[in-house]
């Protein structure tokens, strides 16, 4: 039996994940709602006095994204663990790297979906103004790169948590300290993009490059660590 090519393997695994998520629709909706609730909570905390600064909006965006993203990721890996599908996949003739990349991409898709909810919520509730198409393009690029970095770490550790009793608390504990550079770059980069002056756009470019480097290193780390870490399953 000839096994499929590498990109095809990734695509098949990714499509499987997407179909499973779509079927369990209510879980996605709950996570999206959670994201909106977080933005609401922040608006209670920050609004009412002086209008919130652009820095605050940038921060809220990334905190809301990472909190709701973590929830969604946690849940989706939990569901996989209950069905023991990960072990089945590890036994199947798929390349480990393909498995890791498909997990990374499915986590990223989930978080991009959350962005599609959080960003408009911020525009509505916080009066965030992004500007012209160029600014939107930059923002979307920044969000994508940040999400990829976050997902690279979360997919690795989410898959390797195994049957630990306290795994729900353990995942955030493991992932958040490692993704601090992403959150930092994301928040400061968003601030720079929203601010819009040539000087700040220079900074934004620097943050984007930083995220590219981080993402590359994180994905490399994930590719090499995925198999040893999942080996115990």
């Amino acid at each position, binding site marked *: 039996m000839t096994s499929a090519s*590498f990109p095809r393997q990734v695509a098949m695994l990714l499509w499987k994940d997407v179909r499973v998520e779509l079927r369990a629709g209510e879980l996605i909706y709950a996570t999206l709602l959670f994201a909106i609730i977080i933005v609401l909570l922040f608006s209670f905390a920050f609004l009412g006095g002086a209008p919130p600064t652009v*820095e605050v909006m940038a921060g809220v965006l990334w905190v809301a994204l990472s909190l709701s993203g973590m929830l969604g990721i946690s849940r989706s890996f939990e569901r996989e663990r209950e069905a023991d599908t990960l072990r089945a996949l590890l036994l199947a003739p798929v*390349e*480990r*790297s*393909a498995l890791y990349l498909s997990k990374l991409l499915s986590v990223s898709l989930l978080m991009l979906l959350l962005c599609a909810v959080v960003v408009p919520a911020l525009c509505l509730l916080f009066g965030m103004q992004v500007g012209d198409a160029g600014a939107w393009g930059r923002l979307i690029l920044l969000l994508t790169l940040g999400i990829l970095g976050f997902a690279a770490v979360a997919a690795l550790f989410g898959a390797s948590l195994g049957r630990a009793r306290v795994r729900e608390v353990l995942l955030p504990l493991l992932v958040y300290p490692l993704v601090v550079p992403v959150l930092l770059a994301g928040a400061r980069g968003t601030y*720079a993009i929203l*601010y819009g*002056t040539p*000087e*700040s756009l220079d900074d934004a470019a*620097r943050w984007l*490059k*930083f995220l*590219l*480097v981080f993402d*590359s*290193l994180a*994905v*490399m780390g994930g*590719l*090499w660590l995925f198999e040893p870490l999942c080996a115990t399953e």
Partner: protein
Amino acid sequence: MSRLLLSSLLLSFVLATGLPLASRADSAAGAPPAPAYGAPAAPAAKAVPDSEGFVPDSRPANMTNVEEGIPAGPLVATAYGFIWLAVLAFVGLTARRTRQLEAEIAQLAERLNQATGSSPS
């Protein structure tokens, strides 16, 4: 194989992007602080740094309720004392656990010895 290929691609990418970035970060670190765009320049350069680069009155501008006259002696003594405390606590805990474990090992080895009639290595 794909793993190696992907990794080498990513690594070359990192080197191409990261090195110029890193050298810029170093030079940026020497620049005056600018955390907020368009914010009025904070009066950070009020006191001139001395030969060692230390600026005595360099606390953030809004921290005006800090007393100056804290005696340094207790601070140094506390810091030093803490080292001893931390190290002794670590040594104590480790030694205690090792002792307990070695006692249990001896017990278990004894039982095995009696049961099988030969000593485990």
